[in-house]
């Protein structure tokens, strides 16, 4: 079905293209939502199909393989997703499924129930693991990013005493009081001589006494993800700072060696 003779056809095409290539503003989105029900459904997918085909044709997939650390993180997350999906699909049968199950597949129901119990038992025992059994930080970070609605994400910038080539970012969720630092190129430290320490500057706290975000080590010049261990509740962080301190960290930093800063806008 062609839309060429329809009123608003021009505007509809323009909005579709803007949405695909540049994203719509709030006003444009409202206009798009208003027009969409009036337009044939198949028309809305044609441009998208064209652009997707161009993306495939112009992709540099052979010369730009997915980096190993990223692949590992995605794979871990996928396993988690598949486990969740399997649990949900066994746990919530549709009405039609339930009828079929009742009538002819009772042995399978028993088997599925056993599987659910086994998985749930494993899952609950995993939750009871001691706190020091930390799951992969990269995986936890990815989960926080995809679930936290109030996520703060800022890049590291050079501090007063920068380390050349160091980069990365900080993610922090105020509601979950959880966050992660990501580094690449930060110098590997010798823990018996010095350690890195994170400081969180909170708007409700004097800047002379930032919150201790934990002492940590850098063990690789590849990407390292470090969980933030805030010692106090962080209400409204406006700055994250990494200092180099003596082993075990300090209560008050002299801030003499301050390689990285991340400012929240």
């Amino acid at each position: 079905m062609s839309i060429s003779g329809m009123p608003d056809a021009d505007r509809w095409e323009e909005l579709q293209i803007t949405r695909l290539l540049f994203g719509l503003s709030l006003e444009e989105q409202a206009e798009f939502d208003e027009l969409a029900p009036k337009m044939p459904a198949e028309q809305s997918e044609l441009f998208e199909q064209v652009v997707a085909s161009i993306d495939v044709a112009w992709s540099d997939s052979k010369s730009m393989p997915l980096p190993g650390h990223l692949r590992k993180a995605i794979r871990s997350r996928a396993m988690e997703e598949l486990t969740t999906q399997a649990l949900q699909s066994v746990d919530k049968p549709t009405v039609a499924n339930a009828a079929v199950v009742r009538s002819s597949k009772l042995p399978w129901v028993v088997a599925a129930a056993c599987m659910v119990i086994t998985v749930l038992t494993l899952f609950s025992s995993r939750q009871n693991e001691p706190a020091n059994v930390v799951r992969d930080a990269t995986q936890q970070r990815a989960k926080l990013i995809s679930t936290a609605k109030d996520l703060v994400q800022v890049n590291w910038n050079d501090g007063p005493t920068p380390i050349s080539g160091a980069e990365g970012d900080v993610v922090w969720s105020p509601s979950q009081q959880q966050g992660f630092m990501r580094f690449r190129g930060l110098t590997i430290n010798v823990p018996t001589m010095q350690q890195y320490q994170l400081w969180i500057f909170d708007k409700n706290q004097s800047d002379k006494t930032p919150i201790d975000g934990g002492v940590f080590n850098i063990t690789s010049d590849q990407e390292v993800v470090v969980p933030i261990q805030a010692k106090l509740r962080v209400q409204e962080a406006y700055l994250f700072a990494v200092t180099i301190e003596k082993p075990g960290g300090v209560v008050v930093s002299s801030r003499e060696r301050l390689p990285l800063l991340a400012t929240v806008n």
Partner: protein
Amino acid sequence: MQVPILPRVARGETNAIDECLDRYGGLVWSLACRLSPSTSDAEDAVQEIFVDLWRNASRFREDTGTEATFVSTLARRRLIDRQRKLRRHPEPRSIDETGVEYAAPQSSSQMELAEDGVRVTACLEKLRQNEREALELSIYHGLTQTRIADRTGVPLGTVKTLIRRALTQLRNCMQVGSRLHAEGGVQL
């Protein structure tokens, strides 16, 4: 033609995850690198895209397009959404846009492309130079319409027209190609 992997992902086959990353990891990563402001942003975007893919794998239908275009559609939606959110902050731009070099995209070889990719490559050849350039700057390099106008020196309204005309021609060309292919096995 490659056997689709997504139906196996939808069934929860864990070995399909590795195959999916082998086949589409590069596609998603190259798209994310081009349409993200930094490497760390691209890394976050790729993780979000694959979560979307695992969750939507069951929606893939072979009769509506290739698996690669399904993946790139999901990826682009997520990337544009992220761009839109970032645009709430001032957009970083070069002081002199005309001085920045933007390399033309290299098309994948015919051997590597699925049917849709082969068809669109043939259709792209039929565009005028200025139409193709506008598409390259928007689709491949992720430039906004304003930056394309700065870059090319043509008015913003003309940029919009060029992009729209190019996409409309490609849409028509691909529809014709698809119909011919279905009717008589003719390939563009």
